[in-house]
């Protein structure tokens, strides 16, 4: 059952990920955004299979909720009609494909050769309580710093969107 779920979610994630970057039917950024939502949902499913329940919930809430709504708002604000009539660049397509294929080959070879040390049966872990314990004890300083980062990001965004750029 778990194996079946893994293959289902993995196939969904990879196919939708492909449709985000190279949808053969539509060049519309809205279609890309929608397939990105599906990819993120499939990844949340994989997180559940890995017993990272809290992260699966956060993934849905933050990515599929907040981030994608932001993307859709910006797509709505910008007029992107011209995207659909631009053609693919042959050189860029071939060059990018070859480069990415080489990088994929390199990483796969590294994956085959490295000792991953995953012999033992994985324990059930990743409960929200254990995660919170670790977050608020050992990783308290990074947690506070991330809060400051969010504040800085917020101020920066307000400044960028308030000011009419001369």
């Amino acid at each position, binding site marked *: 059952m*778990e*194996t079946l779920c893994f293959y289902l979610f993995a196939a969904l994630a*990879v196919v939708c*990920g492909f449709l*985000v*970057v*190279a949808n053969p039917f539509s060049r519309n*950024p809205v279609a*890309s*955004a929608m397939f*990105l939502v599906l*990819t*993120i949902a499939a*990844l949340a499913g*994989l*997180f559940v*299979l*890995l017993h*990272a329940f809290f*992260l699966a919930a956060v*993934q849905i809430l933050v*990515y599929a909720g*907040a981030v994608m709504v*932001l*993307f859709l708002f910006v*797509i709505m*604000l*910008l007029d*992107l009609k011209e995207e659909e009539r*631009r053609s693919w660049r042959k050189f*860029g*397509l071939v060059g*990018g494909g070859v*480069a*990415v294929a080489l990088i*994929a080959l390199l*990483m796969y070879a590294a*994956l085959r050769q490295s000792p*991953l040390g*995953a012999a*033992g049966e*994985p*324990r059930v*872990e*990743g409960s929200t309580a*254990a995660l919170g314990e*670790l*977050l608020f004890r050992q*990783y308290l300083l*990074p947690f506070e710093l*991330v809060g400051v*980062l*969010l504040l*800085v*990001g917020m101020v*920066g*965004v307000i400044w*960028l*969107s308030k000011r009419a*750029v001369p």
Partner: protein
Amino acid sequence: MSVGLTHYLVVSLLLFCLGLFGVLVRRNLLVMFMSLELMLNAANLALVAFARYHHNLSGQIMVFFIITVAAAEVAVGLALIVALYRQRRTAHVEDLASLRL
């Protein structure tokens, strides 16, 4: 054959390469940005898989921080794209060539 760490890493690898391909090939700033998000998510998947199979919850903490930073990055990046669009009326990287000699 049961699902192991390698399976998750292969899925992560595929998603990362798709995202990289999108960043390299697509010329629309928004779609490039979405491809970047795809790459971040692929890294997250690898980290969660390592956390599970190596019995170390720090991987999940790392993913937590990555999600937070990615949210801040998306907000700032999209604000920059909107500011750029206001000034240049385009969201296409090929039209942004004013620094080209």
